């Protein structure tokens, strides 16, 4: 087959589209799956939850994260660039003064940290923060 300029262009474009589709980070969809499993596919609201995280973390081994979700009964943290997205679940008991908690987490690479909060009325709220990681924290 003679390859004309037009055909070559068309081929190139379709190849690009294909790599674009398959090149999606697999970890991000793992997080989506984990969130769907948690919420049962319920709609995620935004606004009630906030994450405090550093914009740039020098060391991915200990990244300080604070999550605040007034009115939540439980907050689950996910890191969408880690080999395993789940990070921690905080269940707040009757004596918790505020639905706030801080901890330190490991991040393998630059990625989003997502918090999903289960509210008292059973609905779900979400917030995410992007953290740039200079040195990853999952070992080699």
């Amino acid at each position, binding site marked *: 087959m003679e390859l004309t300029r037009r055909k070559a262009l068309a081929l190139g474009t379709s190849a690009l589209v294909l790599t674009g589709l398959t090149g999606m980070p697999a970890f991000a969809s793992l997080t989506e799956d984990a969130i769907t499993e948690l919420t049962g596919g319920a709609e995620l609201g935004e606004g009630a939850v906030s994450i405090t995280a550093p914009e740039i973390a020098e060391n991915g081994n200990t990244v300080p994260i604070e999550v605040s979700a007034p009115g939540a009964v439980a907050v689950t943290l996910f*890191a969408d660039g880690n080999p*395993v997205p*789940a*990070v*921690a679940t905080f269940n*707040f008991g009757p004596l*918790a003064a505020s639905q706030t908690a801080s901890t330190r987490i*490991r991040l393998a690479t630059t990625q989003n940290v997502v918090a999903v909060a289960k509210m008292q009325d059973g609905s779900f709220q979400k917030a995410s923060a992007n953290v740039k990681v200079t040195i990853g924290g999952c*070992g080699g």
Partner: protein
Amino acid sequence: MASGVKPRVKVPKSASAGEAITIKTLISHKMESGQRKDGDGNVIPRSIINRFTTDFNGENVIDVTLEPAISTNPYFEFEATVPESGEFTFTWYDDDGDVYDTSKKIEVS
């Protein structure tokens, strides 16, 4: 892992009734994630603390489920309400079945 695990907790000595107090906890633990490999390329098996709870006079304050993505020497900071004088109990559950606990008294005036 049962060696060298030492829980440390910071709770104010006194508070007024109904006040929100900040509690800080730290436990020394290597939190082996199960992702790392040793010099020979063998995966180092996972060994982490998988659950942490705080109770005050038997009533729950916070119950945390930990995954391997929690850093070495897990640190937590949170707030609790103290209705009366009593004792906080902090409990950590290790993958290998060990349970570490510590407690702190607080005076409420």
